[in-house]
């Protein structure tokens, strides 16, 4: 509830470190008082609303390769933390090899906000409604994290602890997200149900991703992630298991929809009721899988 939003941002110091080491050290030394900042679109709103009171905002979007998008057929796709969503959408490599990622980015807010918003920022904000998180999870994204003592890779499953809460420690800076080269052929879609046509936060978001996989009974592997129906972005493993083990058919997708519905426990909130969300999870999961399947043919 933002009844008491301040007219302007509260006071803080803007810090622009020259290197990742300097940034991590500063953040660790000022733990609890400092926050790394990329596009700022989430931070400014929270600060103005009075929820966050950091004394220092540490701008990390210009550091060491944060501005790069690189694709390599062996290493896959690396998107620097500072790359804004519009750049991701426009990237020929993303469009060619990871169109699901571009589709997820396109659903976010507005063009103006996407000039600032980043995928890494979306992930670190750890909102269950984060539109790009489902695609990142299903595409096997891994975060590159620079900490006070070391560089490390953090796979996305297990990254989210709760709404707004992740495994990151003070001093940690995510510098990039990396995706393995995608299996071929693959396909996916993101269905975002908002209150109006575009630019809303999701009432329910369903990301579906599928690819041919000879190791499964069905010959395919389908993955589903749900937004806004759990405390964290939710990958529905039951759906993947079921569709791997059973012949692909409209009935199978119907069952997948039911499994998705059973897997989540949404709440009533200002955007929608739990009852509606559950119904939509079922129908939109079925629909997303059906369409993804159609695109694979």
């Amino acid at each position, binding site marked *: 509830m933002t009844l008491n*939003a301040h*007219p302007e941002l509260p*006071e803080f110091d803007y810090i622009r470190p020259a290197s990742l080491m300097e940034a991590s050290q500063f953040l660790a030394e000022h733990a609890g008082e400092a926050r790394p900042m990329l596009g700022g679109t989430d931070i400014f709103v929270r600060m103005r609303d009075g929820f966050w009171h950091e004394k220092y905002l540490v701008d990390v979007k210009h550091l060491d390769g944060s501005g790069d998008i690189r694709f390599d057929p062996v290493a896959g796709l690396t998107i620097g933390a500072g790359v804004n969503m519009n750049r991701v959408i426009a990237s020929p490599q993303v469009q060619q090899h990871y169109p699901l990622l571009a589709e997820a980015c396109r659903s976010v807010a507005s063009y103006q906000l996407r000039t600032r918003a980043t995928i890494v920022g979306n992930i670190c904000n750890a909102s269950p409604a984060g539109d790009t998180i489902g695609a990142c999870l299903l595409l096997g994204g891994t975060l590159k994290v620079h900490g006070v003592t070391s560089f490390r890779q953090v796979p996305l499953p297990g990254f989210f602890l709760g709404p707004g809460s992740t495994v990151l420690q003070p001093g940690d800076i995510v510098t990039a997200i990396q995706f393995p080269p995608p299996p071929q052929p693959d396909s996916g879609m993101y269905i975002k149900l908002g*209150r109006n046509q575009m630019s*809303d936060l999701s009432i329910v978001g369903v990301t579906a991703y599928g690819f041919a996989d000879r190791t499964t009974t069905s010959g395919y592997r389908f993955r589903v992630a749900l937004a806004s129906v759990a405390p964290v972005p939710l990958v529905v493993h039951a759906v993947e298991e079921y569709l791997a083990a059973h012949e692909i058919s409209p009935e199978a997708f119907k069952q997948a929809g039911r499994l998705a519905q059973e897997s989540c426990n949404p709440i009533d909130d200002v*955007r929608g009721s739990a009852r*509606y969300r559950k119904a939509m999870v079922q129908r*939109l999961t079925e629909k997303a899988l059906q369409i993804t399947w159609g695109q694979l043919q």
Partner: protein
Amino acid sequence: MTTRSTTEKVTQPVGVSVPRIDAKEKVIGSALFADDLQFGPGLLYARIKRSVYPHALIKRLDTSKARLLPGVKAVVTGEDTPGFIGLYLQDRHIFCRERARYVGDPIAGVAAVSEEIAEQALDLIEVEYEPLPGVFDPEYGASPDAPLLHPDLDKYEVVNFIFPEANSNISNHFRIRKGDVEASWTQCTAIIERKYRIPHVQHVPIEPHVAVARANEDGKITLWGSSQSPFAQRNLIAKALGKSQSDIQVVAPYVGGGFGSKAGVSMEALAVVIAMQVKGRSVKLRLTREEEFYTTFVRQGVVAHFKMGCDREGRLLAMENKFYWDGGAYTEYGVNMTRAAGYSSSGPYFVPNVKTDSYCVYTNHPVSGPMRGFGMPEMHAGLEQCIDELAIAIGMDPVQFRKLNCIKTGDTLVTGMTMHPTGLSECLVKAADAIAWGRKDPSSAPHKRRGKGIALMWKAPAMPPNAGSSAKVALNEDGTVTVSVGGQDIGQGSFTVAAQMAAAALGVPMEWVRVATPLNTDYSPYEWQTVASRLTWSMGNAVVTAARDARQQILEMVAKAWNEDLDDLDIIDGKVISYKSEESISLKNIVVYGMSLPDDQGWIGGPVLGRGNFMPTYVTGLDPETGQGPRAVVHYTTGAQAVEVEVDMDTGKVEVLRGVAAFDVGKAINPDMVKAQMEGGFVQGVSTALFEGLQLKEGFLQNSSFVDYRIATSTDAPLSLHSIIVEVPQDDGPWGARGIGEHAMVPTIPAIANAIYDAIGIRVGSPPFSSEKVFLAMQEAGLVE
């Protein structure tokens, strides 16, 4: 009543779609809005401490720490504002005293050298509340069980056409008793009885409220603000402070959207009171968007009960209506909506027997005020759905049913007034035609269903019977014309049509006419308010009179100078011409310097200044028991909207594919701008139909920002909008014109509801028709699993 206006030949540029005269300023970014005005480094900033309870006694209020904060220059509380303020009913203090009645009620105000310091000072103000049980539903509020929110209701000053009920929360009770409703039910073949709960919505002007006030040592107060109604603000604030109107000067630059929220007085008085504590310094108060949602005006909610019946032929026989308006914490303005809905409660139909009780009820909700439509969208939302249901119950096509029953020239209206000439039937037929009524087009996808719906509307300007306009027309040496008015351009284009009318009435090219801005109560001529869709008609009449007055002065001067008859002279294209002698002379110079007599024998003429005013003189009172009277209102604008929608069976999402609007505006002074009103109003209507509603829980607003209060965006606008102008002249309108601004959003909610029914066979009832509401209704009906 003269009929000269309708027999007046149409002179360009009246009837021409000239570009608006303020467009260029706006597109290059030089148009100044209130927050753009520069006041120099001495400007102070104000912030308001607001009640955190919907209903509470203020036990203790300690501002001492706030006053000591460096940079704080003034702190004011209700102690400083003992007077009452209000337009129709004076029921509120500028800052609350003893009691807060809604979350957001102003308790204290601070002025400081920066907004940050003012904000910090708010945290230093200590308030001790004693929460009281609250009223959050108007039917409950109207019942004897509810706590009294205004125990002194009977002591409030009130205008003589508003009827509060002492010892209750009912601040106005308007009655219609026409014919014999009870006896009529037995003659009805079909009866529909329904209840609707229409939520509060907010105007959402893209420019939030802003006011700057300065009080000088000599007692003069200046108020700059985003304002629809500088004269009303001057009047109300003066009265509340025990001052005279001329002690206060209100300056009103461009307004970034009003829709009623910037009429009357909401936050402006706060800035004035604070400024009075720091004589000689300007104090700016800006509302955040969050404050905009719940601390200025909102549109009333209403619980509306309809019962209506028709005979075997489909003729409406009786209507019984009960409206419980959720007026919010203060209903100084909202009481008149109750009345306006009451005297129009038959909808645009001939109904011989009507019983209406329209109650304005205090609740601990945000303050209700005027919003585009002034009770009509809220009322039509349910009424036009009932009409549809009744039609179908009797086996009639909804368009045919409306054709039969809609109001026609000469009909006796619900108040006993006789309907003036109206093109409502024409609007209905044209709208139905344009939407291809009766033709079912295939859906765009297998999981979507298509439907069409139609709704009619009417609305009269809701205002005191003696609301007046005035205008001045001054001529300049270069021949240009300066039109001065007191009516504001809030985007609807009133300055442009004023210029067009002046140009036409005077005989000069459009390019020669300017409108003096910003409005300034010290220099601009009086205008009651920019509301009620009244300016083109009322202010227009004043402008035309002033322009003709100027024309007369010029012609008299030239007639004397040329020794010709007035009847042989004319002004065309900025030149005075004689039909007789074929002489001509440009208006330049002579309109200021006069004309010299032959042989240097003196001068005649002088600076030309035309004046005009207009005030309707024929509106009568209504019997308090029956609501009957010879002339309840000045006139009605009528119209129709039809829509085609698609419903997504997977999600319940409703998409408005296309819309058609047809309104009888009497005379379109600027046809393109009339259509622009029809389009903008339609989309605002769609937005309120599908997305909008203040979600109040026990008085607390859950959706106080754009994140969760959704309005229509570019992707929600329909694929096409077709706007049709119908012109059945208004007898006392300039060239026959009457208003359009509000009417364009009145029938949209029920048109969409009726289209949804056509698509999926379900009555969705109360808006907003969100995907969730529609989907769950489909589930309940067994239409989907």
